[in-house]
């Protein structure tokens, strides 16, 4: 197992364990995420990638271990004290999770009104700007139900940006999208880091995304950070398990439940 720590880490997972009943998902996960980087968490399905990032916003709680964000321990915060953390860490969910009863601009305005205390008019004006940023300005008045998955994902990114977060978590942002829309989402993620200084943590097993925009990558295997490094480290890795994941070969040393 190898790891490469960044000099100015923003987020640290220290020996994190998480189980659901008898099913042990994370078994001593340790990893660091640097400031303003696009950090990918990769691994096979069910390995605990989404579980890992949900700990950062208090949607799941660790069984054992510590999580630090910007020098502060956050794994032991109460629901009430997680509130300020959630203003700084946004999340784009796998299913976009827009509310069908509202238009796109109302969806984006929701956190502006709740988190930032803006009035309805101000919030809607700002939500129009955010939708423009993700190239969805023409659809501000549309209902999410009438849009394609790629459009919904972009609107969900706008809603997350409404909180002006320091970190954005992306849970499989390109899953279910065609290659063109997937690369558009990749470009948006890269722009957030380059233009706005946002740290992005992306859960994915979409290889073009991983090798297209990642600054650093952590590969989770058997509940631990099996390998961490740059794109080049992974491309040049001779580790048979890492190679099997990258090549997508069904035969190899990787243990997959049910096979």
């Amino acid at each position: 197992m190898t790891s490469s720590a960044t000099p100015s880490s923003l987020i640290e997972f220290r020996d994190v364990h998480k189980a659901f009943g008898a099913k042990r998902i994370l078994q001593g996960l340790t990893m660091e995420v640097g400031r303003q980087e696009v950090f990918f968490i990769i691994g096979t399905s069910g390995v605990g990638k989404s579980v890992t990032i949900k700990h950062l916003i208090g949607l799941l709680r660790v069984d054992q271990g510590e999580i630090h964000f910007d020098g502060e321990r956050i794994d032991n915060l109460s629901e009430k004290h997680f509130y300020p953390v959630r203003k700084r860490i946004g999340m784009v969910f796998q299913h976009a999770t827009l509310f069908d009863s509202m238009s796109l601009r109302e969806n984006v305005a929701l956190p502006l009104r709740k988190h930032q205390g803006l009035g309805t008019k101000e919030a809607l004006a700002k939500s129009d700007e955010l939708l423009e940023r993700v190239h969805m300005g023409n659809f501000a008045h549309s209902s999410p139900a009438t849009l394609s998955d790629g459009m919904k994902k972009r609107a969900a990114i706008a809603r997350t940006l409404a909180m002006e977060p320091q970190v954005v978590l992306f849970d499989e942002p390109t899953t279910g999208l065609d290659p063109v829309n997937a690369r558009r989402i990749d470009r948006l993620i890269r722009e957030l880091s380059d233009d706005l200084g946002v740290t992005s943590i992306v859960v994915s097993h979409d290889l073009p995304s991983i090798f297209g925009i990642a600054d650093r990558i952590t590969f989770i295997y058997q509940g631990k950070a099996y390998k961490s490094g740059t794109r080049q480290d992974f491309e040049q890795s001779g580790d048979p398990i890492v190679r099997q994941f990258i090549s997508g070969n069904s035969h190899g040393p990787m243990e997959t439940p049910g096979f």
Partner: protein
Amino acid sequence: MSVHTRIEGLGARAIAASHAGARLFVIGAKSLRGVFDRDYPKGEVARQMYVVGNKSLLFIAITMGFLGMVMVIQSGHQLNRVTGDLSQLGPQFLKLFIQEFAPTITALMLSTRVGAGIAAEVGSMKVTEQIDALRLSGITPTSYLIAPRLLACLSMGSILTVIAIVIAFTAGGISAWSVFGLNPTAFFDSSMVRTYDIVIGSVKALSYSLAIPIISGFCGLEARGGSEGVGTATTSAVIGSSFAVLLLDFMISGIGLMVFGGGV
């Protein structure tokens, strides 16, 4: 399976049930607080009132109409056999309906129609991570989702109960007149109804209207997995709400009898 394993299994179930009870209590308390926080979308209470009230009206009207007719015909035949005096049929029927049947049967029907709907809607939002998205947007799901449904059930549950009494009593009166030739003035007599009956009926209607959205919302928020999880949540909501209605019925009736001696 050894005795030890069985006892362990029972213990684990008891602990899980007590944890679920605690979570239900917390969700109930938060939902009630959400009513006062008013942190739900504008017009949402009115929309939910329409869903709970208007859309349940026909269902409840037909059921209560038939129930009123059947009960009067059955009771009338029994009375004819025993005493032959039908003068108390209408007054006793009204008393029983105000205190017992109208609130309880209306609530049981709301459990199946409204409770299932709440659990399915909230459960779908849970499994598609929309509840998590709400929390990240700074919104408490209980305030945003359950509180408006609670207000809608409280208001429309009471109104539907009154409508149920009127429909059942009217249908009963028509049946008594057409089957037994009973004079409508003898049937439509409210002299047996005491304040106690109205208070107990109102307390029941309000208690049921609190229990149904809280239990159904809780089942929705506990949904796990995909569509199967939503289905389980919906079934649990109907069973849980119906059971709560019957339990509350027993408790309120029992307390009423013990404290007020049945209001006689």
